[in-house]
């Protein structure tokens, strides 16, 4: 075998194995999730009482900006990516992704981009800022013209826009990789309508990634030119308008919401059938509604802009398209409930989280309908009501869905089962915590508290509600701590999972846990949608033999994707520090990495 099978540090640094890259994504993203969570806790501590002064206004603005940016780009997207990496090739019966070294490149770019962004917490002295932290402070949405050099002269916004540019490259590379993988590497017989729901939603997500990220890349490039080269893309004095940024950002930003939620919907669509012992109800409809949500996600961006004054016609149109999205979303929810209906439901932790997803996502979806209506939204947008909404969607939805995936697939990824007892404690604490933290925010917003304020007046009458919310946030933190205990405990004391601890229908359960480096000893031939189950039409397939009948070629590791990735943050340092020669160094490293990578022999 090759270097990829031993456990040394080098083998991890050079790995091109989708499973190892999946684990790297998981641990990196989870670390960023903890950082984003700590930022949220400081925010909640500040708001626990009116006129709070735990942190300064400037630091608070950095905290909420980095909380949003971290959770969206460094936690939720890459946590989904860890499942794309680990699970998708297994679900389609492949030995790896289509471009393993490009996959490694995506990971290293993501890691370096995340480190680049977070370095801004500590490097103030290098920029003579007078403070330690010069983290981005313009909001995760970074509205122009506040982000122009005139109003944000420090390096804060530079860190943000350069960091996002780096992360965009990671997402785009991964997007193309997974589209090619899913379309081309499916096992014989796995037609598109036999592809598991999670892999389907991954495919839709990746199409959204490759179409949405170029839009924000353009928006950020304009901003970069404005800040570094004195152009005026968002400067109204020069005849432009800052509203252009809002269109570009939300044209990316709304598909981004579906990039965040569709993978979780895919996980739920796989978890529910396994634990109800019933096929996914209306598989075709669930898949098509996912595709439809992907398409419709492109026609709704201006619902983030109802207060901008686009006029009654535009408001009416975007209101209607937004409400329409509720239809395919509702269809998915009804199909999930119908999947449970008539089943034999085993209340595993994974099922708890999957059902928690449905129960909480409904609340986020319904509050979404209330601000799909522009006049009502004028009282809601930019208030805590919307903070409640997005957290019911992204925490109640995406995070719950991701935890369902973690409890479901962790045994596959590590060979050991997580503790169900601790898992249920985790679930219930998180469930109670999130509702305490986020439900009062609906009222806080309706009572008139805007979002992104570092302090508020006691006269607003929302002090008690804010205190409850803070208690909820710390309960969530406790639940995450329990999860970490569970993870650590499982390393040594988790029960061995075997090939298939749950009785799953899809191909990943037909091979050992964790899978051997080649995944499938023999590439399976798929004859139906639920290959490992007995249904009225067919018997279960035979699992691949424990050892491969012939030697399986596995590609070796490579240093060059990492080298190429290293070129990007160096390139970004050039504008950040206004140092021209760094641009040449960065470009040289990037090109050297790509050159060596391109001419590296495939056989190692």
């Amino acid at each position, binding site marked *: 075998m090759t270097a990829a099978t031993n456990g040394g540090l080098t083998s991890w640094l050079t790995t091109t194995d989708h499973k190892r890259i999946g684990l790297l994504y998981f641990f990196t993203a989870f670390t960023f999730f903890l950082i984003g969570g700590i930022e949220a806790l400081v925010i909640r501590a500040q708001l626990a009482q009116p006129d709070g002064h735990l942190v300064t206004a400037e630091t608070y603005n950095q905290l909420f900006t980095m909380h949003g940016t971290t959770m969206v780009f460094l936690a939720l997207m890459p946590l989904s990516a860890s499942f794309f990496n680990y699970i998708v090739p297994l679900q389609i019966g492949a030995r790896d992704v289509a471009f393993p070294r490009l996959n490694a490149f995506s990971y290293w770019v993501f890691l370096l981009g995340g480190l680049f962004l977070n370095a801004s917490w500590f490097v103030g002295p290098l920029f003579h800022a007078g403070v330690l932290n010069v983290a981005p402070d313009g909001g995760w949405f970074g509205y122009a013209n506040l982000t122009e050099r005139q109003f944000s002269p420090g390096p804060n916004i530079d860190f943000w826009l350069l960091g996002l540019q780096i992360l965009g490259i990671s997402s785009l590379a991964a997007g193309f990789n997974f589209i090619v993988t899913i379309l081309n590497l499916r096992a014989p017989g796995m037609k598109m309508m036999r592809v598991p729901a999670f892999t389907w939603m991954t495919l839709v997500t990746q199409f959204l990634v490759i179409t949405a990220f170029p839009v924000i890349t353009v928006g950020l490039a304009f901003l970069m030119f404005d800040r570094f080269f004195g152009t005026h893309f968002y400067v109204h004095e020069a005849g432009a308008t800052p509203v252009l940024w809002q269109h570009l950002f939300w044209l990316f930003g709304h598909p981004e919401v579906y990039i965040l939620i569709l993978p979780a919907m895919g996980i739920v669509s796989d978890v529910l059938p396994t634990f109800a012992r019933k096929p996914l109800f209306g598989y075709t409809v669930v898949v098509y509604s996912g595709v439809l949500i992907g398409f419709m996600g492109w026609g709704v961006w201006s619902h983030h802009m109802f207060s901008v004054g686009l006029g009654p016609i535009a408001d009416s149109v975007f209101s209607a398209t937004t409400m329409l999205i509720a239809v395919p979303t509702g269809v998915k929810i009804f*199909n999930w409930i119908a999947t449970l209906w*008539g089943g034999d439901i085993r209340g595993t932790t994974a099922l708890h989280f999957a059902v928690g997803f449905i129960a909480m996502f*409904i*609340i986020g979806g319904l509050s979404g309908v209330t601000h799909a*209506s522009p006049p*009502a939204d004028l*009282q809601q947008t930019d208030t805590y009501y919307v903070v409640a909404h997005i957290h019911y969607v992204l925490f109640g939805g995406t995070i719950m869905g991701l935890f369902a995936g973690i409890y479901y697939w962790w045994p596959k990824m590590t060979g050991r089962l997580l503790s169900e007892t601790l898992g249920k404690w985790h679930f219930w604490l998180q469930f109670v915590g999130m509702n305490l933290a986020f439900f009062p925010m609906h009222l806080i917003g309706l*009572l008139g508290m805007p979002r992104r304020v570092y302090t508020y007046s006691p006269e607003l009458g929302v002090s008690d509600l804010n205190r409850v919310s803070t208690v909820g946030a710390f309960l969530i933190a406790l639940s995450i701590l329990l999860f970490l205990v569970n993870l650590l405990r499982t390393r040594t004391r988790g029960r061995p999972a075997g090939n298939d601890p749950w009785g799953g229908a899809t191909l990943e359960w037909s091979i050992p846990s964790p899978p051997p480096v080649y995944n499938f000893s023999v590439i399976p031939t798929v004859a139906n949608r639920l290959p490992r189950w007995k249904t*009225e039409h067919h018997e279960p397939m035979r699992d691949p033999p424990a050892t491969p009948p012939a030697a399986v070629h596995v590609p070796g590791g490579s240093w060059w994707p990492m080298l190429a990735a290293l070129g990007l943050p160096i390139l970004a340092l050039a504008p950040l520090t206004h140092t021209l020669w760094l641009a040449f160094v960065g470009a040289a490293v990037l090109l050297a990495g790509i050159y060596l990578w391109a001419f590296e022999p495939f056989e190692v």
Partner: protein
Amino acid sequence: MPRYRWWSTPAALFLLGCGGPFPQSTLHPHSDFARATDVLFTDIFWWAAAVFVVVEALLLVALVRFRHREGRPAPKPTHGHTLMEIAWTLAPAVILVFVAVPTVRTIFATAGDAPPDALKVEVIGHQWWWEFKYPELGITTANELHVPVAKAVQVAITSADVIHSFWAPPLGGKRDAIPGQVNRIAFRADSVGDYSGQCAEFCGASHANMRLRVLVDSDAGFTAWVRDQQSPPATPAKASLAEQGKAIYARAACIGCHAIQGVSPGTIGPNLTHVASRTTIAGGLFPDDSAHLAGWIADAPALKPGSIMTRMKPPLTDADIAAIIAYLQSLK
């Protein structure tokens, strides 16, 4: 008179339990604009609540009824049901029609056009305070907007720097203040009162400190206020502390940014011609009293992060500040 709506009662009772009086609440509308959005929101809320109850109930019933029991036969592998799919596609679509029609009607009803005889007000957002101009009355003031009760008000909103959002929830929904663009809202306040609001679009360091008040006056009260505001600023008595203050004001950096009619023409900061008629200073942050004025003049950025009203160099003495305060407090 505000219409009484039985379905508001649960929300109102709940809120009473939490204290009050919620001066910035969207749930206590005091104008035609705020009432229209509140009625719409309440309608949508009850549709949403109904859907919530039905769907969560179905979910719970499924979980309880079909939970695992020993000896339960293997479930029937149903794959779908075309009629049901059609039904639960149509059901939300129909509900959404009931939401969409009043929505579109309200969008056009609240599109921002007031009758031509409406009181015209210009709102200009600054980092981090509000400038209010009455072009037809020749009045410029800051952070406290006076309007007459039961009269249409046409508000034109823009910004002098970054994007802000003008929001006084009891009187209606927010509109963004965007540099280079004028947005309009219109409302007719239905009761005399003192309503608070604040900037709703993140606009930099002191976004949280960009507050405002809307004072809805009786007809007589508004007329008196207009008369006071249109009068020239008070002239301090000879040899008074206020007169010293005026002299210090006129030679200090104050005049570079602030306007006092006949004294200084600055436009960067709030117009101080009748500053003593206002109840708050610093973007609605502090009461307009001697103690807060003293702290503010001595070191504004310490009280309001990012404030461009810097500490004077050389610093003003306490005596200077006391004199300036006496002058400012004479500007009724």
